[in-house]
């Protein structure tokens, strides 16, 4: 089935989210839509799926014009969508989720799931999905939950499947599995619209690529185009994807972690006997699939974990047992994994967020009297230094884009005298331009002789920045390897496979 969009335009107030977009997806094609966060990809797909009404434009399915006002219109036209955030009820089973909204009742109003079970089995076997209709959603890994969403779309006879940033939540292995599934679906005649900003994946599966920037189609490309070409089209200028690591002097150990064990509130070990050291001018990356204890290790560096044993020595001084504040002021810059939850206070101003850690010290305060004018003027300086794009430093920090939010966190954490930079998932959810900035900044810190401890689940990021890579698996360090390792070897290590 083919899908064609003609002159789709949609504005939100002054923002033109989609500007006369033309797009044609052929039968049995994987068509990637590539663009930065906020480029208008999701808006376009929400229009196709009937979640958002376009201001103008037309949609054709198999060259027949369709009016799509509701998701049910889209489904009836054979268009299915898997959202970035799954639309599943966690306490229901797979089958219950799939019949939701189309329930059949048997004797005395009993929910009849037999037909659904059979269909799920059928689709699951056809594509090797390995999904059991009676499993509870909340017990399934994210990758399998996503397959449930895909099954739902297929059972309702979607011939065009929209996947909105499907790999954002997946581990490298799950991503590979998904890419395989996409190829399988294509082979059986389903058209796929693949929305993403990850270049590697686009090159791996797409037949054609449409690039959207600021609401406009700025070009199409074939998957043979280089990653740098695609990135430049996406961002609108030359970008350096893999920053030049350069040559740099590595000095004495700054951070020495010995026999670090971290337990949860009931005493289970989340991290056990972890040992590593980071030297001045060195980036040690701790790689691993989300949930293997890296988050806890990162938080322990500034004493945010409650039950910690072992030793964390910064320049020979023990960190464990200090308060968070003392750890930060001892020379650790800390970029937390979630800038929204732990890094920033959304409703407070940008200026205030820049001094959360220093608010009670001169020049921001004398005694307990704060100096708001100093807070603002210092924020203006930081804004320029870190290229934070904003209207006013007095606006709430929640008004900023993801990249600019992360710049605020960076600017704050690097404004203290720092020996060690702990960066946890520093580019998660950022666009290419912001990733480039954050990476450059991390390497600058390294070049200035600081030790950098980087926690990342992104293989590309780890390979681009690290001097050495420690892979964590199930709360322990599986191996520490030099940066020359290939992505494939690293992926296997992250899955817990050690070379024979």
């Amino acid at each position, binding site marked *: 089935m083919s899908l064609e969009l003609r002159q789709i335009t949609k504005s939100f107030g002054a923002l033109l989210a989609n500007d006369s977009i033309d797009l044609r997806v052929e039968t049995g094609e994987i068509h990637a839509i590539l663009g930065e966060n906020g480029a208008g990809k999701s808006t376009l797909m929400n229009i196709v799926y009937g979640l958002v009404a376009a201001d103008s434009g037309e949609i054709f399915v198999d060259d027949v014009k369709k009016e799509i006002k509701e998701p049910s219109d889209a489904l009836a036209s054979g268009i299915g969508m898997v959202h970035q955030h799954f639309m599943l009820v966690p306490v229901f089973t797979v089958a219950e989720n799939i019949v939701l909204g189309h329930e059949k009742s048997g004797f005395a109003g009993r929910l009849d799931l037999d037909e659904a079970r059979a269909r799920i089995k059928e689709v699951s076997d056809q594509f090797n999905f390995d999904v059991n209709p009676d499993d509870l959603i909340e017990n399934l890994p994210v990758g399998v939950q996503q397959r449930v969403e895909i099954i739902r779309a297929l059972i309702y006879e979607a011939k065009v499947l929209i996947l909105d940033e499907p790999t954002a939540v997946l581990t490298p292995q799950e991503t590979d599995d998904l890419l395989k599934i996409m190829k399988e679906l294509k082979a059986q005649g389903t058209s796929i619209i693949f929305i993403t900003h990850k270049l590697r994946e686009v090159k791996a599966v797409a037949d054609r690529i449409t690039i959207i920037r600021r609401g406009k189609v700025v070009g199409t490309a074939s998957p043979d185009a280089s990653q740098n070409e695609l990135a430049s089209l996406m961002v609108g200028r030359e970008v350096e994807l893999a920053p030049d690591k350069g040559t740099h002097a590595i000095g004495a150990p700054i951070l020495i972690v010995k026999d670090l064990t971290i337990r949860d509130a009931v005493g289970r070990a989340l991290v056990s006997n972890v040992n590593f050291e980071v030297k001045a001018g060195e980036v040690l990356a701790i790689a691993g699939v989300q949930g293997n204890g890296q988050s806890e290790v990162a938080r322990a560096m500034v004493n945010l974990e409650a039950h910690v044993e072992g030793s964390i020595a910064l320049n020979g001084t023990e960190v464990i047992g200090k308060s968070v504040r003392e750890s*930060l002021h001892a020379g650790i810059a800390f970029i937390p994994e979630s800038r929204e939850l*732990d890094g920033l206070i959304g409703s407070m101003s940008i*200026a205030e967020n820049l001094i*959360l850690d220093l608010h009670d010290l001169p020049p921001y305060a004398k005694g307990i009297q*704060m100096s*708001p004018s100093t*807070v603002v003027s210092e924020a203006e300086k930081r804004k320029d230094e870190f290229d934070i794009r904003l209207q006013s430093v007095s606006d709430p920090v929640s008004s900023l884009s993801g990249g600019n939010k992360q710049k605020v966190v960076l600017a704050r954490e690097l404004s203290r005298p720092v020996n060690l930079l702990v960066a946890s998932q520093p580019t998660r959810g950022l666009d290419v331009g912001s990733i480039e900035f954050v990476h450059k900044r991390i390497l600058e810190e390294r070049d200035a002789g600081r030790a950098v401890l980087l926690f990342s689940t992104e293989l590309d990021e780890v390979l681009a920045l690290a001097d050495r890579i420690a892979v964590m698996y199930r709360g322990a360090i599986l191996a520490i390897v030099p940066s020359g390792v290939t992505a494939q070897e690293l992926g296997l290590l992250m899955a817990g496979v050690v070379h024979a």
Partner: protein
Amino acid sequence: MRKLSIKRPSLRALTLPGLAFLLAMFFGALLIAFSDSKVLKNIGHPIAFIKAAGVAVWQSYLALFQGSIYNPNLATPHDSLLSWGPISETLVTAAPLMLAGLSVALAFRAGLFNIGAQGQFIFGSIAASYVGFHFHLPIGLHIIVAVVAAILAGSIWGGLVGLLKARTGAHEVIVTIMLNYVALYFLMYLLSTTPFLRPGRRDPISPDVLQSARMPLLLGSNYRINLGIFVALAAAVFVWWLLSRSTWGFRFRAVGANSAAAKTAGISVPFVMTAVMAISGALAGLGGAVHVLGSDFSLTSGTAGNFGFDAITVALLGRAKPMGVVFASILFGALRAGGGTMQANTDTPIDIVLVIQALVVLFIAAPSVVKWVFRLKNLKTTGELAAKGWNG
């Protein structure tokens, strides 16, 4: 120069509370009309019915106005200013309410829902009145000692809640509700003991606070208005300074808006919880002092009235901002003062005032109703605080 966190209170911010109040007055008018026996007698005759309803509503709201702001009937040939006397009554009621409201608002800004202003108010009243009737101290010093005692008593009662929450995670809503009972029954117990019994009386009422400990009257003995209202306004300025200009307030707001990020940036969350509840309790305790030293002068089991609970409403109506609390408490003071006159002069019971108060808060919590009624499209909803409740 731009201010850091305080935006000038614009008229827009008053739109929602103002319209909510108008709407509440409208429903209040319906209630007045339909509860009036003369109106109901004419229910079969539309014109007479509307006329009677108009008269009932007009008379009730006129009495409300005359009881709270201006009543020409009170003027004497010698003193025409007496007709403004009701304002004095409004402010006398507003002062303790303002302090208790500031207490709730401050805790709110730090993310804590202080239901315990009532208990802290009671402890403040006990401490202030005990110092006021038991000790003989020089004028001036006596008031200061009584007020300081009330502040300490309130801050201990409030700080205890913060400490329990910081150390054990006990939810402040549960703890404060329970401590309100403890405070009330402790007061009743005290009123049965010798030091708190008024000589010659066997019912639970304490001796009167000595003259030297009473809040000085501002306009002579014809008016009850006293220093208390200035104490309350000064406290509002203090809370504003604390929240927007001090390092402590910075921490309070940070913890209130996102305690995880505050903790990550090195701010001690347990310290903030304890400190904010102690200061919050101190404000409510001060409210108790202003009440017993300014207008009541003696303790009874009903001393605290409903101040601590109305304070929650006042804080919500004032959007947990000091300036907002000042206006909201004066409005509530006026409704209370006028409600008495309305009950005395018309058939309308004072309970209508409670209904109006409740409706104001209801409409602020459900801003879409106000927007729908007044056909507003672009009104920024500022009532989220009331709508979100205590997990916001």
